[in-house]
Each structure stands twice: as structure tokens, then as C-alpha cells.
């Protein structure tokens, strides 16, 4: 009986666990609840993913009300992949959070952290499962609001301004999305995404629909930090607590990319989005700018978290580039990169959290010589860094390979060369950190730093192993991505 309700369970479990954390204020109890909730969520996602791969799209009516009046939860290969990513990262970050918070947050209020964390998880999962447009907005805002809270928990006072800036920009983005949904409702009379997709061609692509499209793309671009609407991201990820940076970097922007994919391909349809409207051109141009400019800025930053934050903006560029190709290979590449980037950035930020735990700073000069005293930690950084650059045998290589293939398929040689060139820039900013950690002398007061505790190392290493594993045994993510791409393109 429970199996029928799996789609809604993924949301309900964290949703109910969140206030439970507030009720049970003890530090260990709240932690235990959070752990169970995230792991339970992940288990549900895994079962759902298996089901979807076996039998196709899952559909669930909330409360038994049939769509299009009722809210429908609709899960296909793309949703399943996003669910896996979000809950997977969540379950790795939750055990990590316990010790990492010690330094970065007031211990006796940790239950509040777990509550916000679970709400964020719930919101992100909700976005991934829902088949109703307005419901998507609601869950998006749930996750956004809780992420504003999570970011503001950083001990550096700039976390507050970063969170405020994110709040302003994020709310504008969400409001744009709401305007878009309203205009779509006006045009079609329904809020169910599949239904809108059916009714739009009948209604015709008039100014209302074009306006809806425009508002949506801009709103989502704000949420996913597509260059040049990325201003909030570097500060938000740098000053937030490391656990939060790791979780958000690996999930929040991915979910926004999912929203873009869902609306562009399923709701508006490929024909309207790319044939009638020349969307591919500005997307591709912005993606290429995103691949280069933030990467170059990253080469000059001294705070390693900022370097990784700018790197994230660049990686979003890769995903959007994949989307801009509008081919099977291109979409597969973009979706694969969603998955791989979550692994990479999650691992890197978790490592930085461990570094911060021991030396209280993520400044590149303070990290000098760290490889000697914290070898396992820095080795994990190297592993994640190699994946970021795109060395063969890591996950990052697979998605880059597909991207280049897609570019060659379309005959866009210059784009293939640009992709390779931007990887070179990634080499520079990763190398700076490695050079500092491995080839310099540690500062005097940090000569006797101990290795990071296991509770922080193990989650980081799990993600690093994931990078390597999915770089060699690529069948799972590739097959899901291909299935997702096929259903997105074939929706028309």
C-alpha cells in the first residue's frame, strides 16, 4: 500500500520531520530525525527511479483528485534523476552536518538548522515531483525561503547581506515565474503542466504565451544563476556554513535547471521554444560567456569557497549549453552534467568544510602546505578537482565528452574548441589550490593541524568515489539521462 504513495512520500517525509525537529530540541534527537528523514527520502527516490526506468512515467493524484482539477505528481526519467540527486546529496550531507556545525553554528540551536534543512529538501523534492505549475512555484518558494535562512546562518556577518541579496533577487525571479504561470493559465485555463502542453497549440502562440515564455526564462535564469543574473551566488555560497554551501551548490541550481527543462520542452514544447522563438541563440551565447568569465574571475580569488562558487556559475553554463544544442546528445550532456556537477561540487564543498573545521579559514594562503597535515582531505580535493577539470576516468569527463560530441554533431567546431579552452581555465584555478596545499610551507601557527574527523571525511570521500565510479561505470546516469532527453524531445 505504501508503494502506491511513494511519490508523495518523498515530500511528506521531510515535511513532517521538519517540525518534529523543533519539537524534539535535543541536539542528537534533531540530528537523528534529520538523518532518518533524508535517508528515508533517498530510499523512496531510489525505488521510484527503479520503477520509472522499468515502466515509464509515474502519475499520482494528490488526495485522489484527478487532474486537471487536482494536483498531479508526475515522475518521468528526468524527475527521477533529479530526485536521486537531491535526496542523495541530502543523505550524504546530513551526517556531515553534525560535526561541521560545531564550529559554524550555535550548538544548542542546531535543531533549527535541521528544520530549515529538511524544509529545503522538501521544497526541492517537491519541485522535482510535481506536475502542476503553481504547485511548482509553491515548492520552489518553500525551498528558496529555507535556503535564505540556511545561508544567513553563516558566522561571517556578510552571510546576512548575502542572504538578503539572494532573497531580493530570488523573490523577483519567483515572482516572474508566477507571472508566467498566470499568463499561461489565462491562455489555457489549466495549471496542470501536461494539460497546458496539450492546450497551448490549440490556443495558438499569441502575445500572451510569448510574454509567459519570456517571464519564465528570465525568472528561472535568476534562480539558476545564469550569467549575468548570477550576482547573488558567489557571496551566498562563500559565506554560508560549509554544509549549506555543499548542499545548495549541489542541488538548488540543478533544480532550477530542471524547471527550465520542464517548461521549455514539456510545457511550451520544442517547436515553440526553439523553432518559433530563437531561444537557442541567446541561451548558447550566455552559456559560453558563463563558461569563461566567471572561470577567469575564479582564477584571481583568494577565498577558495568563492573560487568554487564562481566555478559553479561556469558549470551552469555547461548545462545550459547542452540545452541550447536541442539535440539528443546535447540534452543528454546537459542532464548528465546536472548529475555530475552535483557530485563534484558536493565533494569539493564538503572537503572545504573539513578544512574550515580544522583551520578556521578557506583562504588559499592559509591553506598552504595543508596536504602534509591533512592528506586525506586534500586528496579528496584533488579527486573532486580532477573531475571538475574533466580528466578521463572521472564523472566530469563523461559530460564534457558528450558536450563536445554534441557540438561536433551540429558542426559547431568553434564551440567544441571553446569547451576545451574553458576546461583549461578550470585547470588553472584548481591548480592554484593544489599548488598551495602540496607545494608550499604551512604558516607558522598551523604546523600541527590534525586530519579532519572521520564524520567529515567519509561523506566527502563517498562523493569522490561516486565521481570516479560514475566516471568508469557510466551506464546508470547515462541511461537515465538519455531516457530523459528522449522524453523531453519526443514530447511533441
Amino acid at each position, binding site marked *: 500500500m505504501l508503494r502506491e504513495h511513494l511519490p508523495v512520500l518523498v515530500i511528506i517525509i521531510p515535511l513532517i520531520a521538519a517540525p518534529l525537529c523543533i519539537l524534539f530540541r535535543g541536539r542528537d534527537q534533531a540530528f537523528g530525525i534529520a538523518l532518518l528523514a533524508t535517508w528515508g527520502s533517498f530510499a523512496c527516490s531510489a525505488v521510484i527511479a527503479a520503477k520509472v526506468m522499468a515502466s515509464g512515467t509515474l502519475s499520482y493524484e494528490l488526495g485522489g483528485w484527478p487532474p486537471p482539477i487536482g494536483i498531479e505528481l508526475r515522475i518521468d526519467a528526468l524527475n527521477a534523476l533529479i530526485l536521486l540527486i537531491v535526496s542523495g546529496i541530502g543523505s550524504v550531507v546530513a551526517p556531515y552536518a553534525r560535526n561541521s556545525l560545531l564550529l559554524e553554528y550555535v550548538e544548542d540551536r542546531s535543531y533549527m538548522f535541521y528544520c530549515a534543512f529538511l524544509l529545503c529538501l522538501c521544497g526541492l523534492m517537491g519541485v522535482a515531483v510535481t506536475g502542476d505549475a503553481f504547485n511548482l512555484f509553491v515548492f520552489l518558494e518553500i525551498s528558496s525561503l529555507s535556503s535564505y535562512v540556511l545561508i544567513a546562518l553563516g558566522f561571517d556577518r556578510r552571510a546576512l547581506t548575502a542572504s538578503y541579496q539572494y532573497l531580493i533577487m530570488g523573490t523577483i525571479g519567483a515572482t516572474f515565474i508566477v507571472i508566467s504561470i498566470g499568463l499561461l493559465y489565462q491562455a489555457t485555463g489549466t495549471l496542470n503542466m501536461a494539460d497546458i502542453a496539450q492546450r497551448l497549440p490549440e490556443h495558438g502562440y499569441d502575445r500572451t504565451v510569448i510574454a509567459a515564455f519570456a517571464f519564465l526564462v528570465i525568472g528561472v535564469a535568476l534562480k539558476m544563476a545564469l550569467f549575468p543574473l548570477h550576482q547573488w551566488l558567489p557571496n551566498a555560497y562563500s559565506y554560508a556554513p560549509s554544509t549549506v554551501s555543499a548542499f545548495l551548490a549541489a542541488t538548488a541550481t540543478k533544480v532550477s535547471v530542471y524547471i527550465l527543462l520542464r517548461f521549455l520542452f514539456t510545457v511550451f514544447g520544442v517547436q515553440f521554444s526553439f523553432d518559433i522563438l530563437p531561444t537557442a541563440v541567446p541561451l548558447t551565447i550566455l552559456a559560453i560567456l558563463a563558461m569563461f568569465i566567471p572561470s577567469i574571475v575564479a582564477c584571481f580569488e583568494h577565498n577558495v569557497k568563492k573560487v568554487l562558487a564562481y566555478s559553479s556559475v561556469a558549470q551552469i553554463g555547461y548545462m545550459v549549453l547542452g540545452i541550447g544544442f536541442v539535440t539528443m546528445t546535447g540534452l543528454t550532456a546537459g542532464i548528465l552534467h546536472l548529475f555530475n556537477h552535483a557530485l563534484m561540487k558536493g565533494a569539493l564543498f564538503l572537503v572545504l568544510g573539513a578544512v574550515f573545521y580544522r583551520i578556521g579559514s578557506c583562504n588559499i594562503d592559509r591553506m598552504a602546505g595543508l596536504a602534509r597535515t591533512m592528506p586525506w582531505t586534500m586528496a579528496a580535493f584533488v579527486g573532486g578537482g580532477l573531475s571538475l577539470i574533466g580528466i578521463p576516468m572521472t564523472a566530469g569527463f*563523461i559530460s564534457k*565528452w558528450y558536450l563536445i560530441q554534441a557540438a561536433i554533431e551540429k558542426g559547431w567546431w568553434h564551440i567544441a574548441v571553446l569547451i576545451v579552452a574553458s576546461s583549461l581555465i578550470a585547470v588553472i584555478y584548481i591548480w592554484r589550490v593544489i599548488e598551495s596545499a602540496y607545494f608550499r610551507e604551512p604558516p607558522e601557527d598551523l604546523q600541527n593541524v590534525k586530519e579532519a574527523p572521520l564524520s567529515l571525511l567519509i561523506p566527502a570521500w563517498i562523493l569522490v568515489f561516486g565521481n570516479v565510479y560514475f566516471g568508469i561505470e557510466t551506464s546508470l546516469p547515462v541511461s537515465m539521462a538519455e531516457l530523459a532527453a528522449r522524453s523531453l524531445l519526443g514530447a511533441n
Partner: protein
Amino acid sequence: MHHQIYIGLAIILPLLGTVMIWMSGSRPNQREVVTVITSGLTFLCVLQLLPEVLAGHQPELHVTELLPGLEISFKVEPLGMLFALIASFLWIITSFYAIGYMRGHHEPNQTRFYMCFAIAISSALAIAFSGNMFTLFIAYEVLTLSTYPLVTHSQTDEARRAGRVYLGILMSTSIGLLMVGIIWTWAAAGTLDFTPGGILKGKIDDGLVIVLLFLYMYGIGKAALMPIHRWLPAAMVAPTPVSALLHAVAVVKAGVFTVLKVIIYIFGADFLTETGASIWLMYVAGATVLLASLVALTKDNLKARLAYSTVSQLAYIVLAGALATSHSLVGGAMHIAMHAFGKITLFFCAGAIMVASHKTEISQMRGLGWRMPFTFAAFLIGALSVIGLPPLGGSWSKWYIALGAADADQLVFIAVLMISSLLNIAYLIPVFARGFFGPREEEEAQMAGSHEDHGDHGDHGDHGDHAGDHDTATHDAHDASDAGKRIAEAPMLCVVPLWITALGCVALFVYSDWLYAMLSPIVK
């Protein structure tokens, strides 16, 4: 098949050795034993594959398939066999030399040194045995990364700067040019497997072949074609054992080996000659040969001179590849072996001179030959091999390359070869000659003041002993009579290896027809 195991073993053994070296880090004697045993075992594994290759088979090993069509696989063919034999054999010799050198100099971070050495050899073997361009590329990158700590070993500012040049040039050429070329090849041919006759025939427009060749040749930065050769002289800042093995044998040889493999098995020699796509390469390589030799003439630092000599010699092999005739290709492959033994002898001598007398500039080396006769004699042998005179091996490889130039109707390059031999004489023989001319007494007096005790090991037992004894004996046996002593021959652990390699040059001359026979299948 039974022999597959040896392919995997040969690559894995050095990696296992790395772990064991790491674990023996605090016990130097145990660590050196591990290095020596690992190198010996690796060579034995490589040897096991030799009979198969000589019989005409090509043992294969498939590891895994990353993506459809992109797999990690190994296949042993004569060219790869040759490179693997050289790399693994010379690893043994260099291990002994390195033990003597590192201990004599009291170098820090020796564990890291031996570990990175082992990883570098493992990746060199992986390059030698690679069955497709993808596997080769991965191993190529691992080689660059594992030799970086070796280049920056001394961690001075100069070393770090050199390391930056090294890594900068090699990584940017490999990712920016080579990878693009590999992707293009994949897109055009649908496969990256090394196939006799090449995989590009008919798959690519004639005009574009030149561009693709350009991407490969300049993407393979380790072959040090001008103007991307800068990393090679920069890397001379490394300790001599590193320079010797890696830059006279493994790293640069990996580069030219890759060049030959690409020309023979990706492009196909006939395809290249038909389209005439390699003519520009002949001229670039020829120019490199001459220019590098000219620069070598101006260098006073012995290692710098040898570095530019290497650039020039590597260009021989690239030229041989560009000529793409049967004789030149086999000659180029033979030159890999000849130059390896010749150059490593020269570098070992340079290191021995450094250890014994602390001299690095050729102008300071007057009269040194009388003090270090064995070293200088070996230097002469190595020099003659590089110059290409009988009875040393280098003469055969040059002969075949010249023959290949004649076959290709590119007679100008025969002239290039002859001029460069003259230039080689001009920059190598004076080093030897200077050692035996010039006032010895004056030098003696100068040296007496700055001499440290290194020179009284001429009568220790052979290098089969564990290396531990020599080291402590060095400084403890420093009595008053040594203070004003003359410079004497370098330590046994340094002299014996360089004589082995010098004799190797002679042996290669004698057995060169056997070598030719082994290599001729690559052009069938």
C-alpha cells in the same frame, strides 16, 4: 591468453611499488630495496612479452569500456615493446644511480622522489602498451602529472618556476591541441584504435590532414618540437637522475614514441605520403635539429647543453616520422633506443661530475678527465653514439633515417643530418677534450679550497650491495688527509651504471640487425 597478465602486471607492479615505497618511507634501506626489486620484477614482466612480439603476435588486454567505443585497452606491438624494454631496463640502472646520487647529496623528500618515479614508469609503460589513442592520452597525462613533483623536487623558487613552465606547456598543449585532435579523429573515423595502415584514410578531407597533423604534433608537447621545446631546458633544474631517466628516456621518449605511433597507426605512413601532409613537418623538424644544435653550442652549463642536444635528437625522430618511408620509420624507432642509451650515459656523466667535483659549467671542467677517467671515457662513448659514428649504435639509426630521406626524395634532409652530426661533434667533443687538456695544478689548487669529501669510493665493492653502507661512510671517513685531497672518480654507484649504459651503446651497434628485425613489422 596467458600473456595478457604480463601486460597488466607490468603496469600495476610499479604502482604497487609506489605504495610499498610510501610505507617504507621511514626506513631508507628498505625503501631502496623495494625500488630495486620492483624495477627488476617489472623488467622481467616486460621481458615475458618479448617472445610473443618477436613471433609476430600482439598480446592484447581490454580493461574496461567507459562509453560506447571509448575503451581502455592495451595491445603490444614491436614499437611499444621496444619502448617498454628501454624504460623498464633503464629504470633498474637509474634506480641504482639515483640511490648513489640522492644519498651523496643528502637530498630531502627522497620517499616522494622514488614514489613519483615509480608512478612515472608505470605511466610510461601504459603509454608503451596502449591499444588506442584514448588510453595513451590518459597515460600521457598521468606521466606529466607524476613527473611534476620530480621536476620541482628542490622546491626552490627557480624549481617552482621551472615546474610552472613544465606543467604549463605540457598541459596546455595536451588539452588544448592534442585532445582536440583526438576528438576530431574520433568524430571522423569513429574509432581511436591503433590500426596498421591508419584509421583516417578516406575519412578526412585532404586539406584538413595537415591541420590534424599539426594538432597532433604540437599537441604532443613531450616531443619538444620548436617552439614548444622550452619546458625541456627548464626541467634541467631537477636532480640529475630525474633528468637522466625522464628527460633523456621516459618523458621525451614517450613524446616521440607517441609521434611515431600516431604517424604509423592513426594516419598511416602511406596516407601521409600520398597527401603530402607531412612535408611541413619535415621542415619544422629539420629546422629544430639544426637550431637546437646551434643553441647547444652556446651553452656553458653541461646539462643545458645536453638538454638542447636532446631537443635536436628528438627532432631526428620526428623527421623520420615525417618522411614516413619504411627505412626512416624503422630508423626513427631505432633512434629511440640509441638515443636513450647514449643520452642517459651523458647525463649520468654530468651527474657524476656534479657529485664528484661540484662543477656544472663546461669551462670549469678543464683537466677533470685526468681525475675522472672512467666517467670521461664513458662520456666519449655516449657522445660518439649521439654523433652517430661507428662502432656505436647511433650510427645505424642515422643511417636508416638518411636512407629514408633518400627514399622520399628529400635529399636536403640528408644534408641536414650531416650538418647536424658536425654540430654534434662541435658541442660534444670539446667537453671530452677539455677534460684532458689544460693545467691540472691550477685546478687542483682551486679545488682544494672548496672540495667536500666525495671522492674516495673508487675501491668499494660492486653495486650489488645494499646502498646503505656507502652513505654513512662518506662523511665519517673524513680525516685530515682528505681535506686537501685531489678530486677523484665519482662514487661507484654512479660510475658503474654509466658504464653499463655506455656498453649498451656498443651492444646496440653490434645487435642492431636484431633490433631492425624486431621493428620491421611496423612498416609491413
